[in-house]
């Protein structure tokens, strides 16, 4: 049983990576319709903006409240803005917002592609002389990656605002004090880590959602299964990628300051 799970995991991971490479090769060789990419960014990204803004502001607010509890005991609330922003940008923000996007963007994309697969739309496109990877998958994958990346960045920026707002109106720390220590405590490496994580999470959501949808089979039940797998695999892969990037980032940080 355990062996089968490991074999399945390795096979699915390999298949997703190969699928991603096929999409990259197709785009490199034949290009992609920019109008379709813009359409996808609108459909996937723009419509997810309100949810992302809400999630981002709450993530920032939660961080500020939690960190304030620790700092208050040491009388170090002056550092709240810097610490909350650093934690939000480096780790908690990208992960939580990516979780939300995997549920919204990932599930939407895999369900849409899965339905196209089981209703033979993808086969029909092939029969009509068009490569479905170029016509259907590439614009969606680029749309998902770009949208997720932009939404994560927007979510993180809003998160800082959320932390600041809750500090001002709930914790009694003025916005000026909150901002004051941000440049001191938030290093460029924190910003870079947040940006790298946002990009990697966007790629993971796009690749897994598109692959699962494209390889769906067996009718409505098959679409249900592909959406479930997309949700589970994106969440797990985001956690694993977060661990990997955090480890590399910490190692690099130690190296730079040793």
């Amino acid at each position, binding site marked *: 049983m355990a062996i089968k799970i490991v074999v399945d995991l390795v096979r699915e991971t390999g298949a997703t990576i190969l699928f991603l490479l096929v999409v990259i090769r197709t785009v490199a060789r034949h290009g992609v319709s920019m109008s379709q990419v813009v359409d996808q960014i609108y459909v996937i990204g723009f419509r997810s903006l309100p949810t992302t803004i809400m999630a981002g502001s709450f993530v920032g607010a939660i961080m500020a409240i939690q960190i304030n509890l620790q700092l208050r005991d040491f009388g170090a609330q002056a550092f709240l803005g810097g610490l909350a922003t650093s934690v939000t940008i480096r780790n908690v923000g990208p992960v939580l917002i990516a979780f939300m996007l995997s549920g919204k963007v990932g599930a939407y994309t895999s369900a849409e592609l899965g339905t196209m697969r089981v209703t033979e*739309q993808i*086969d*029909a496109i092939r*029969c*009509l002389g068009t490569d479905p990877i170029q016509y259907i998958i590439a614009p969606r994958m680029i749309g998902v990656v770009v949208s997720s990346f932009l939404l994560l960045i927007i979510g993180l920026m809003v998160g800082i605002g959320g932390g600041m707002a809750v500090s001002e109106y709930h914790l009694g720390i003025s916005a000026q004090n909150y901002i004051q220590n941000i440049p001191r405590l938030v290093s460029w490496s924190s910003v870079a880590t947040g940006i790298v994580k946002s990009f990697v999470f966007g790629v993971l959501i796009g690749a897994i959602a598109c692959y699962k949808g494209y390889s769906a089979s067996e009718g409505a039940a098959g679409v249900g299964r592909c959406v479930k797998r997309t949700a589970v695999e994106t969440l797990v892969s985001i956690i694993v990628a977060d661990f990997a990037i955090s480890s590399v980032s910490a190692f690099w940080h130690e190296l730079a300051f040793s």
Partner: protein
Amino acid sequence: MIEFKNVIKQFGEKQVLRGISFTINEGEIVFVIGKSGIGKSVILKHIIGLMRPDSGEVWVEGQELSHFSERQLLAIRKRVGMVFQYPALLDSLTIFDNIAFGIRAMTPEKAEGLVHQAVKEKLGLLNLHSDVLARFPSELSYGMQKRVSLARTLVLNPSCLLFDEPTTGLDPVNTNTVNDLILRLSRALKVTSVVVSHDMHCALQIADRILLLDQGVVVADGTPADMVYSENQLAAQFMREAKEKIYGNQDRR
């Protein structure tokens, strides 16, 4: 001409085609019948290169397809069209863009005026008015979507047509329209038609030949009359109801 030589196809543990062999001649209308899940649609998908055999050979118009690349298959797909079991229309495109999709992809040099003309001509063949052209698939009934999908395939003027249950979901009037169309294309333009269907009434009316599939091989192959009077028990079961409708009176005489 289409020829299958000892084609084997397996999905997981299940072997769907077990060394199947048959030939379909130019201009023939051949119905492929058999129980559900027996591999009828799989045969169509092999003919158009959507699937490749695990072993054996699939010949279409003198070319063996098993090792063709997608680019090589493009030339085959210009001449072989497929009408799917589902309408398989693209939701984000209008009906016009759906029908014009193949012609634009395969003959990009064709002037837009000629594309319009071809689309309207095929629409008329299928009893569809041109006011549907600006609408989206979700605004049409299932039967209309089916006919649009047929128009989308016909617009390329293929020399061979593959139909996967073309009349499912159609009313009797439009079922007759589709059957007449298949017959007309075959007789007037020598278009080869391979039809997967459970509609034995249609099969007996328009088929030149019927292939009966069971256990992954062809168990009966003959004209509609051969099938009606076949001693094969499965063929008899399939033909019983349609036989009474079409041949009932003659039998009593």
